[in-house]
């Protein structure tokens, strides 16, 4: 069991930060720390200090020349990001979201309610300069009530943001899944705590694609035993590219 932040002494926080930076935390603990870094200033300062302490050790590694292909790939990706979500210039920034007609058209086409758009725009505003490239609204399959929003500001990481409380029976857990059109089956993105934002690095998956399916299902408390969704779908939605 991981300790809750309330039980942690400054020494515990420093120990967690040091092992995170050193690299010896396991996948679940790493994800947990990365999630906390967004809000937990004490943990963040400890991590920053450890990054500074240990970073001179990168000198021990021999440099290696990249293939010419690498820059070409980076350039292509940067160009495609800029095409999808050109960044706001300083002058246009305060109202850039409201001026982005294509965004409104794209979202309206998915038939969302106006309040939801507003909520999403507000969430996005707080994310400042991170261009959002995909949005997904997860709705309850029975009555289409929106429950969660997924925003992806990079093709490599997504955030699952609750729009309200979600009731989960005591002996069950919510599990988060995704599947693109041409994948053989859904892939688990982990367990979700109702009412809390979850950041998921997608390093292990192919980049997000339009129409990619996301869903939350009810599973046993430790997640589906079969590695595939087995319980009822609680929320479901597909990725919409923000142009």
């Amino acid at each position, binding site marked *: 069991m991981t300790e809750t932040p309330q039980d942690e002494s400054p020494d515990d926080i420093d120990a967690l930060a040091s092992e995170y930076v050193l690299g010896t935390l396991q996948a679940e603990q790493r994800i947990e720390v990365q999630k906390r870094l967004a809000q937990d200033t004490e943990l963040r300062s400890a991590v920053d200090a450890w990054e500074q302490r240990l970073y001179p050790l990168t000198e021990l590694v021999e*440099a290696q020349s990249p293939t010419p292909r690498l820059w070409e790939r980076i350039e292509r990706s940067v160009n495609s990001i800029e095409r999808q979500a050109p960044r706001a210039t300083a002058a246009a920034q305060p109202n850039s979201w409201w001026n982005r007609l294509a965004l409104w058209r794209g979202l309206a086409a998915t038939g969302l309610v106006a309040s939801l758009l507003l909520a999403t725009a507000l969430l996005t505003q707080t994310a400042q300069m991170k261009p959002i490239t995909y949005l997904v609204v997860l709705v309850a399959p029975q009555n289409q009530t929106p429950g969660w929003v997924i925003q992806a500001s990079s093709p490599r990481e997504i955030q699952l943001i609750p729009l309200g409380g979600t009731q989960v029976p005591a002996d069950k857990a919510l599990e988060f899944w995704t599947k693109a059109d041409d994948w053989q089956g859904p892939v688990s993105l982990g367990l979700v705590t109702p009412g809390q934002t979850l950041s998921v690095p997608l390093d292990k998956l192919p980049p997000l694609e339009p129409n990619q399916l996301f869903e939350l299902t009810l599973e046993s408390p430790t997640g589906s035993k079969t590695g595939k969704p087995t319980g009822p779908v609680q929320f479901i939605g597909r990725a919409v590219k923000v142009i």
Partner: protein
Amino acid sequence: MPEPGFDYESCLIACARGDQQALRDLYEQESPRLLGVARRIARDNVLAEDIVHDAFIRIWTRAASFNPARGSARGWIFSVTRHLALNFMRNGAREVQVSEQSETALHASASMEASLETAQTFDYHGHSGRIYTCLEQLEPAQRTCILHAYVDGYSHAQIAQKLGTPLGTVKAWIKRSLVALRECMG
């Protein structure tokens, strides 16, 4: 080593403004060293280039979030790269059910076995800086644990295997070494 004349911070500010030339400058400046760091952890050339690709995309999209009060600009781009590499290695070990990706993960773990046999030793002599002075004060085995973890990206279990030392001992050594380093470095 950071190049004395190169202004990393201005490059990040320019990236945040959308200046692609600044990203190119950072790439020219640091891609071989970043690739070295990623390659050492990923133990695979193709994977290492994927990681550095992702790192530059992240540097591009998150340059605005860089805060010089929290550390150096060069340190930031190295942490971005290292953590992407570590995320990949740790998550890959959980065997994701995407066929193409599983192959990559299997491939990575196969080359892992090979590199555990022939892991490079660390020539940390001749480097100046507080961390090196403080490392010098650790027991040699404990120092090796810290270096395998940070530089090679080895997990506790991999270090235990490599050194032929019980897992619990390795965990305790690392914990203790980190506390000692903290005291030594302030």
